[in-house]
């Protein structure tokens, strides 16, 4: 798909449209000219009979054939228009609903999902408007208040105020440490650097003593570097640890805070709606491709238990282990679990049973030619 070709085709359309427009103006001017000429003649006390003038005018206009003149440019414009339509249909998939199953999504569930999405993205006004337009009950009230808190903290951080963030981190410091997060230290460091930036060495020192000290045992190096920055108060640009005093830290710490906040309240970091749509974007091309081949079998499509084509999603969509037996190409399940053989290679239980003729003989592993005794294979748990 060459976007440049498509843009060129559109430029042609715009050009033809301009031509058509100016031709139309031209033609109208011609008509006006003729009528005005006739008008002049009639108004002036000429010897020509009025009726004659008018008949002449009628004949002139017929000769000019204004609509006929326009036909040429119109035709060219129509050709350009239909060419553009064709190039769109060729370069893009004209019907992405081909792989759609006729299953009704429950509107309420979808509305709930959308409302939650708005609130967790911080689009509170839009969310409220949506709830009132859909007349959904306040089912998303819980999500709303959770994320309102989070966005208040983030908004404050955006305007340079770390107080709410620090308060929240302090209140949740146990859970944060459990998660292995040093968010509290990071926030205090930000505050420390800001105090330094404003120039007050004593204040910064006082702050460090009160707030950085408790973390000293676990983060010796970092704190040493931070304290060293005291020397460069008011001249932080020249400090030897630019990454410690950089403004981008605010962004990274905000991200860390978002991640920890979501984790602590039992929410995912990414909006589930965004994740699902992104997965859909990756899944649609192979599904649609399959549908063009499958054409007649719409019935089967509506009722299958498993997708007929593999859809390989990116790493970020892998939440569960999938093991595909290299022999049978089937996904393992509780009924047919993966088994490790004595050589270290793994097959699914059904394949092992088949190859060993139900444990009646040894077989050779398809990867390394070691002899395998089915009874010695162990089940694996991911």
């Amino acid at each position, binding site marked *: 798909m060459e976007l440049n070709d*498509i843009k060129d085709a559109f430029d042609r359309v715009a050009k033809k449209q301009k031509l058509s427009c100016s031709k139309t103006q031209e033609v109208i*001017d011609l008509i006006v000219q003729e009528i005005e000429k006739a008008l002049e003649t009639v108004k002036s006390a000429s010897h020509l009979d009025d009726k004659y003038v008018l008949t002449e005018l009628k004949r002139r206009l017929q000769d000019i054939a204004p609509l006929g003149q326009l036909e040429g440019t119109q035709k060219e414009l129509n050709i350009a228009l239909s060419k553009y339509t064709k190039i769109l249909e060729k370069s893009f998939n004209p019907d992405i609903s081909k792989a759609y199953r006729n299953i009704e*999504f429950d509107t309420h569930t979808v509305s709930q999902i959308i409302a939650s999405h708005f609130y967790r993205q911080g689009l509170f006004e839009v969310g409220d408007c949506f709830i009132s337009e859909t007349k959904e009950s306040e089912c998303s009230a819980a999500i709303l208040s959770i994320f309102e808190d989070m966005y208040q903290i983030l908004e404050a951080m955006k305007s340079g105020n770390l107080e709410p963030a620090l308060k929240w981190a302090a209140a949740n410091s146990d859970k944060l440490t459990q998660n292995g997060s040093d968010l509290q230290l990071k926030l205090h460091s930000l505050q420390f650097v800001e105090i330094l930036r404003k120039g007050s060495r004593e204040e910064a020192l006082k702050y460090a003593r009160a707030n950085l000290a408790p973390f000293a045992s676990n983060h010796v190096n970092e704190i040493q570097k931070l304290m060293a920055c005291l020397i460069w108060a008011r001249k932080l640009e020249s400090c030897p640890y630019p990454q410690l005093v950089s403004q981008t830290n605010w962004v990274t710490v905000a991200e860390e805070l978002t991640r920890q906040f979501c*984790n602590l309240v039992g929410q995912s970091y990414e909006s589930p709606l965004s994740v699902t749509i992104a997965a*859909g974007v990756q899944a*649609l091309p192979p599904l649609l491709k399959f549908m063009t081949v499958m054409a007649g079998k719409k019935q089967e499509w509506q009722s299958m238990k498993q997708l007929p084509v593999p859809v390989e999603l990116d790493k970020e969509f892998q939440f569960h282990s*999938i093991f*595909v037996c290299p022999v049978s190409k089937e996904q393992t399940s509780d009924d047919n679990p993966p088994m490790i053989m004595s050589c270290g*290679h793994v097959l699914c239980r059904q394949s092992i049973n088949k190859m060993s003729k139900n444990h009646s003989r040894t077989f050779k592993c398809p990867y390394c030619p070691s002899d395998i005794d089915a009874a010695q294979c162990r089940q694996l748990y991911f």
Partner: protein
Amino acid sequence: MEMDSLPNGNSAAASPPQNTTPAAAGGTTPFPKLTQLTEALKLEHQFLRVPFEHYKKTIRTNHRAVEKEITSVISNVADVSDSENFSKDDAVNHLTSLVSRLQGLKRKLEEGSRTEHLQAQKCRARLNHLESADAENLAEWNNTRVKRILVDYMLRMSYYETAEKLAESSNIQDLVDIEVFQEAKKVIDALQNKEVAPALAWCSDNKSRLKKSKSKFEFQLRLQEFIELVRGENNLRAITYARKYLAPWGATHMKELQRVMATLAFKSNTECTTYKALFEPKQWDFLVDQFKQEFCKLYGMTLEPLLNIYLQAGLSALNTPYCYEDDCTKEDPLSQESFRKLASPLPYSKQHHSKLVCYITKELMDTENPPQVLPNGYVYSTKVCIFLVIIM
């Protein structure tokens, strides 16, 4: 605790990767980002088609108005020149009025051209938006796509306020089709008020294209008007109406025509089920649905909201039996009740390549962080195993 650190057939320290690692299975590395992006862009037909259809329609309408006016002026001149009783003053007045009509037409043409230009700009803006997608701004571009999909949903469900608010909040007015749907809103509101006039006007505006697609929507509107006349017991008017507006459709839709005509024999409170159905107020809802379908088809839009299409594909691709277990990670959308509900009638995903996720760290176990088998058969990532060794 003893541990097989390298669960392979040979006991050598360095080992070839097991068949459980994705690299050995071959080809599990995802499409290079560029191909993936191109495939994603190919899904955006509607995005480019809708403003283009709108642009085409404006061009057509404007041109028709010009044609009509020019024809009228010329035939006017013909009338004047052919008529017998025209005084000089009459002639002058007439010609002057024709000139001012043409001047007015020129102004209208200017205005129309400006509108067409704006619409062309919108088409271009969308082409530029597609072009702007690249590796650096992918996260933001994807975010915009989610918003576009949501605005499409809002417009289809007639939540116009939310659609506008959402579009404004991220400045994506050029990337969504609010005006196009406003046009539909007029017709839909009228139909919900049991008025067919705007719908009929829409049909006449789009006559040629509806005819090409063999649409019978206009016929259905006329039938409904007929039913309303019968309901109001205006039987004579109903018959006149039928003669004028329903008869032309008789050739292609005789059966339906006959069925509706038969209502003349019944009253609107008839108990006979076949005809009772025709008098139901639900018929108006059916007309609204029909209109929405015709409308979407005309503009090159999918019949279902984009949201449903993407959700269905995404849910299916993410759907595994493991998602429904209690310990499913929160990052999986299918750990949520609402998503599970939507996904339950959908098929499971299918994969041809193994992908193993460490139970503890939730990270993918690949060649850089290979899986290790513990003596009890449980598999964890190398990182976790090293950690276990350290703390033991």
